[in-house]
């Protein structure tokens, strides 16, 4: 375990991308179990300011659980989560959101019976200045803040490129559009760190390309992104660093191209008993991925 951490640290440092001097999120030796089942077993990784880090791994590796520990939805039994140096383990999700963390869910969790705009307005909850008395008396501050929330919601819906009606109920939107609304809602929080849990799941080819562009534009705003994703094309294209999880711990950390080559990663994805055909397919995939990366960085 400790050997691994050192190794991964070294790799992170040798990343071809720009150095991230400030660590925004630092997860150390995280442990979480569900009635004896160790979902997370000594996981460590970090996300620097303005960095895009992908978290990948086979199904059940503990990726979503790790996000849930970071955002306060699960209480880890050991280890620490530091946000900007502040320990957050044991805090409730709302309080962690207050520190500048925003997230989406693996299965979109929108407020179905509310309008699209109201869903995105949820992101403004933390910073909107409006007291109960402003609301009861309709003070100028109430009007200003409501206008601000509406403008902000529209701006982020524009930013994510939502097609479709904004005044209508969010549950009437097609699936792909709902995923956009969920990202817009998370962005309206104006987070320092955005956690995306499989944002490409269920999207078609065009939508994936748009998502790739969107993720880059979010990073350009200065927001750090941690991304769980099964779509390797997207991961290889967009990430500055990749953390590979298996059985609740990181088995490799590094630049996308490095991680691809790692035998431990190939093994984790295919299992020890992978037959020749599968191995050939994996090698093929790796070759393709490398070309993508080269194309992306040039």
């Amino acid at each position: 375990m400790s050997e691994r951490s050192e190794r991964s640290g070294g790799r992170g440092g040798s990343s071809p991308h720009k150095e991230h001097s400030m660590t925004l999120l630092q997860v150390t030796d995280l442990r979480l179990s569900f009635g004896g089942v160790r979902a997370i077993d000594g996981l460590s990784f970090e996300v620097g300011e303005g960095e895009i880090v992908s978290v990948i791994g086979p199904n059940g590796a503990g990726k979503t659980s790790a996000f849930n520990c970071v955002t306060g939805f699960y209480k880890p039994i050991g280890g620490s989560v530091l946000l900007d140096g502040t320990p957050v383990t044991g805090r409730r999700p709302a309080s962690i959101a207050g520190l500048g963390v925003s997230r989406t869910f693996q299965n979109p969790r929108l407020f179905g019976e509310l309008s699209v705009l109201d869903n995105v307005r949820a992101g403004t909850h933390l910073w909107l200045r409006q007291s109960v008395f402003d609301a009861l008396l309709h003070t100028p501050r109430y009007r200003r803040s409501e206008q601000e929330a509406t403008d902000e919601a529209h701006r982020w819906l524009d930013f994510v490129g939502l097609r479709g009606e904004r005044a209508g109920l969010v549950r009437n939107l097609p699936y792909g559009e709902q995923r956009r609304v969920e990202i817009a809602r998370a962005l309206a929080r104006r987070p320092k760190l955005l956690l995306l849990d499989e944002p490409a799941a269920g999207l078609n080819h065009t939508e994936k390309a748009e998502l790739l562009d969107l993720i880059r534009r979010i990073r350009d705003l200065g927001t750090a992104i941690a991304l769980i994703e099964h779509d390797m094309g997207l991961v290889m294209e967009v990430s500055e660093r990749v953390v590979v999880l298996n059985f609740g711990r990181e088995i490799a950390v590094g630049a996308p191209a490095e991680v691809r080559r790692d035998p431990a990663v190939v093994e984790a994805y295919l299992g020890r008993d992978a037959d020749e055909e599968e191995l050939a397919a994996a090698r093929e995939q790796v070759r393709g991925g490398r070309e993508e990366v080269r194309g992306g960085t040039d």
Partner: protein
Amino acid sequence: MSAGDASQEGTPHVEPGPQAGQGAQAGQGPPVKHGPPVKPVRGRGPSVVTRLMETRYLGWIGLAIALGAPLIIATPYALNVMTSAAIFVMLAVGLNIVVGYCGLLDLGYAAFFAVGAYTGGVMAAELDIPLIATVPAVLVVTVVAGIVIGAPTLRLRSDYLAIVTLGFGEIIRICATNLEITGGPSGIYGIPGLFGDDVLTEPAAFYYLTVLIVAVAVLLAARLGRSRLGRAWRFVREDEDAAEAMGVHTYKVKLAAYIGGAVWGGMAGVLFAAHLTAISPPSFTFLWSALVLMAVVLGGMGSTPGVVVGAVFISLAPELLRDLADYRFFVFGVLLILVMIVRPQGLWPHRSQETARTAARSKEPVA
């Protein structure tokens, strides 16, 4: 009453555009500035009923109906019934904060009604002061009651919450039956009027006063619903985890809903004490809690005009059916079941509050 005072009050700078729910928008066409065309929700323009239901003068219309009713019938009996109905409306909009906005099932809402009525009634009778002077004290007591009942129960899941609130409703009533200061089973009599004993004793005058107070209460409750806190309530109702992820402290927000409900219920209790000048434990049984909840569900949870209509229906229907003598509650029950089958969303369901202006896209992209 003043339902739509609340839903669409006539302050032009607050909501300048015409009400554009989904129906209205299909007719006018949403002001899309760019991007692909937006599919209309309905093929035809809004019907007369839709337009009437969404007019911004709804509140004024409701208020006018309430104020005009005594011109049609003004017997002491009718005024008595109408005053009770107005107080019932206030209870319903209060419970709507808890059940409709926030989605918390409260089966003991009569507890707050009782706390308000008894606090006001006992203070006014003991100190011999007008009821209105007890309002600050009633506010404090109801807020405390909201916290005392809400703080331990709101950590529970909603199904447990329903049972615990049911228990609290009974506890308050049994306390009132057994305490000396509340007059025991026979209650308290001779509560001074709202402004002392000789002012506003005319049934019609008291009715008008009640309508105005209730109108303000309805307006304020609706304003709460359209605020940052009101949105947070709806987020909690829709998905607590997602709300937390957006920084909504769900426990505090639920407690705020409870306190809001308690204050509205308590104030309705003061009006009730002023109306009857006597209160006793049988006025605060579970039946009351159930009837108020019924008004909220029947009208349309979370919808101010709906809840007002529901409350008026629940309080007036048994009176209008009085000719049926022993059958009236039977018919009342059948009517309720029929309404819920025909309109499961309620008589007047909540609609998205986006206006033409808020629904329009902004011009500048994110900086």
